[in-house]
């Protein structure tokens, strides 16, 4: 493989489980199973899917906050699970930054906004004591907290949800990372500011080649911003496709359900959905496809064998027996 073909980040069959249940009856909850995708310089990959399907877990795996139980994770072709097995190096932690899902829990209440942003600047040598404050002000301005002077000396409790979310984004940008794992970075922003923040991320990937994993429930935003979209359900990848294609021609029945549920002009809360309600068990999952119990297009294999991930077209992969049958 030549250098140009080595993706910035590659996940190969990454799995993890959590021990749950009582002390005497420990059981394994399979939070992600065999997740594989790549993320390249300047690329934005959207991750969408059911609440509880393992999206945040993927981001936490890549940040090395939770251990993997299988698979490989390659940064510039180097399997970091092998080269840095116990914990990530400082260099890795600079290169890979995370924006956490919960802006109310991810900022430390005792510290000011200035502290939150200056700390990574200093830790990773991106500013000196003398210019850290002006660098922090600039970052606040970038994320639309204007005038930045109004915000820099505040404590998190005096900020609204959306303002905290933007502080978290500024903090992640501070060490000039190569990869940002953005876990629902704009869920508490009004649509106009949301557009501004997404445009900022888009700018950074074009100008600086920043790679972004964009976890979101906002499918329209994912369509407009992401190059590719990965769809998760019950810890497994159901589909991956170029963003436009996924939205216009979703191949997996779960992706179809997801698209059908997006609020549309003139739509009603009670418009029928193309699948049954239900939640998949992650502890002792049934054999076969995790979506089978809700799917209205099942074939016999769906309840017996896990569908393999197959290639449908360029950049388009799906794990569904309907398509396995068709391509054979």
């Amino acid at each position, binding site marked *: 493989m030549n250098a140009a073909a080595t993706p910035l980040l590659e996940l190969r069959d990454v799995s993890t489980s*959590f021990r*749950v*249940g009582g002390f005497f009856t420990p059981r394994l909850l399979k939070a992600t199973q065999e997740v594989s995708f790549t993320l390249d310089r300047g690329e934005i990959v959207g991750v*969408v*899917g*059911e*609440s*509880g*399907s393992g*999206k*945040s877990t993927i981001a936490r795996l890549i940040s090395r906050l939770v251990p993997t139980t299988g698979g490989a994770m390659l940064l510039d072709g180097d399997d970091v699970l092998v080269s840095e097995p116990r914990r990530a190096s400082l260099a890795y932690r600079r290169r890979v930054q995370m924006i956490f*899902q*919960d802006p*109310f*829990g991810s900022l430390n209440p005792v510290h000011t906004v200035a502290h939150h942003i200056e700390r990574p600047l200093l830790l990773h040598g991106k500013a000196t004591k003398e210019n850290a404050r002006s660098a922090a002000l600039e970052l606040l301005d970038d994320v*639309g907290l*204007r*005038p930045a002077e*109004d915000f820099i000396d505040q404590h998190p409790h*005096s*900020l*609204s*949800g*959306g*303002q905290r979310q933007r502080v978290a984004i500024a903090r992640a940008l501070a060490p000039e990372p190569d990869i940002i794992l953005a*876990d*629902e970075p704009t*869920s*508490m*922003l*009004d*649509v*106009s*500011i*949301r*557009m*501004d923040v997404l*445009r900022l991320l888009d700018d950074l990937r074009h100008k600086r080649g920043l790679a972004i994993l964009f976890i979101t*429930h*906002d*499918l*329209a*935003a994912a*369509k*407009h911003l992401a190059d590719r979209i990965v769809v998760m359900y019950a810890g497994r990848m159901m589909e991956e496709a170029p963003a436009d294609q996924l939205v216009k021609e979703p191949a997996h029945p779960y992706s179809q*359900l*997801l698209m059908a*549920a*997006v*609020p*549309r*002009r003139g*739509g*009603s*809360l*009670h418009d029928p*959905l193309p699948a049954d*309600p239900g*939640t998949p*068990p992650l502890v002792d999952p049934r054999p076969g496809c995790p979506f089978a119990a809700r799917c209205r297009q099942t074939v016999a294999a769906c309840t017996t064998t896990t569908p393999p991930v197959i290639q449908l077209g360029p950049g388009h992969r799906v794990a569904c027996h309907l398509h396995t049958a068709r391509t054979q």
Partner: protein
Amino acid sequence: MPEPLLRVENLDVAYLAADGPVRATSKVSFTLEDGEILGLVGESGSGKSTVAKAAMRVLGQPAVITGGSVRFRGREVLRMSDAELRQWRWRDVSMVMQSALNAMNPVMTVLDHVLDTLAAHGITGAAAKKRAGELLDLVEIDRHHLRSYPHELSGGMRQRVVLGIALALTPPLVFMDEPTTALDVVVERQIMRKLVALQAELGFAVLFITHDVSLLLEFATRIGVMYSGRLVEVAPTQLFRDGARHPYSKGLLGAIPRIDSDEAPVSIPGSPPSLKNPPPGCRFHPRCADALDVCETREPPLVQIGADHWAACHVLEVA
């Protein structure tokens, strides 16, 4: 006319910061009728959470309610004694806070949380356990998670547990501050359907704060829009969708990314004003394409511009 369930009038709230007061809400007025869902949208930082918290009187230091009134079935909430407040909160209202993702006690299981709330209302034993299971069903979470601790739940699952707890007793008034931000559109839709069905059956009223205008259009009775501490428009949902009049409301509708269109949404130019030094006149005028001279000097009041349709904009008054 009988008194509405909730009447908020000219509500002013300020946060007393070291370097001067932040006027988080100014002269906010609205009513909420029994069985109604009032959606509240608006700029991030415009005072939506502050309005809900002030109306429930859960604002702490350094916030002060500097003016206005909040009446619940005609009774002044802002003058209730501590004992009356406790009783009122116990019987008549509940709230899902915006910080729900972070609201659970890390050493208590989901079941402990639900039982706590139920016990506070005299429901204990087998009846409480049964109700706990039903509440998890309501918010689409597998019952085995009754034994889970908060860190064992995903963001959306924590949010749903808190939502379930707020619905445990279905009082006549429920405040919900961005209760579904962490949910995928399918689960969100399933839960909203149940919520609306429950609400139709039991007749409680909801103040629903969200940034998801498209979702709101599908179930709210009326929609209110806030900008920089003011309520700038209130209208019935249909009317709002087809004929929002305030320039900020129109900008907001135009900024929604659409899944069924390739056109990029248009964000509103400029940035929201500082609450410490707000611009004179209409607070939106520096960003408004339609601004008149008067907009720079005089603050427009919220006035009726049509049947059940209110807006605060000089341009609309002139027209």
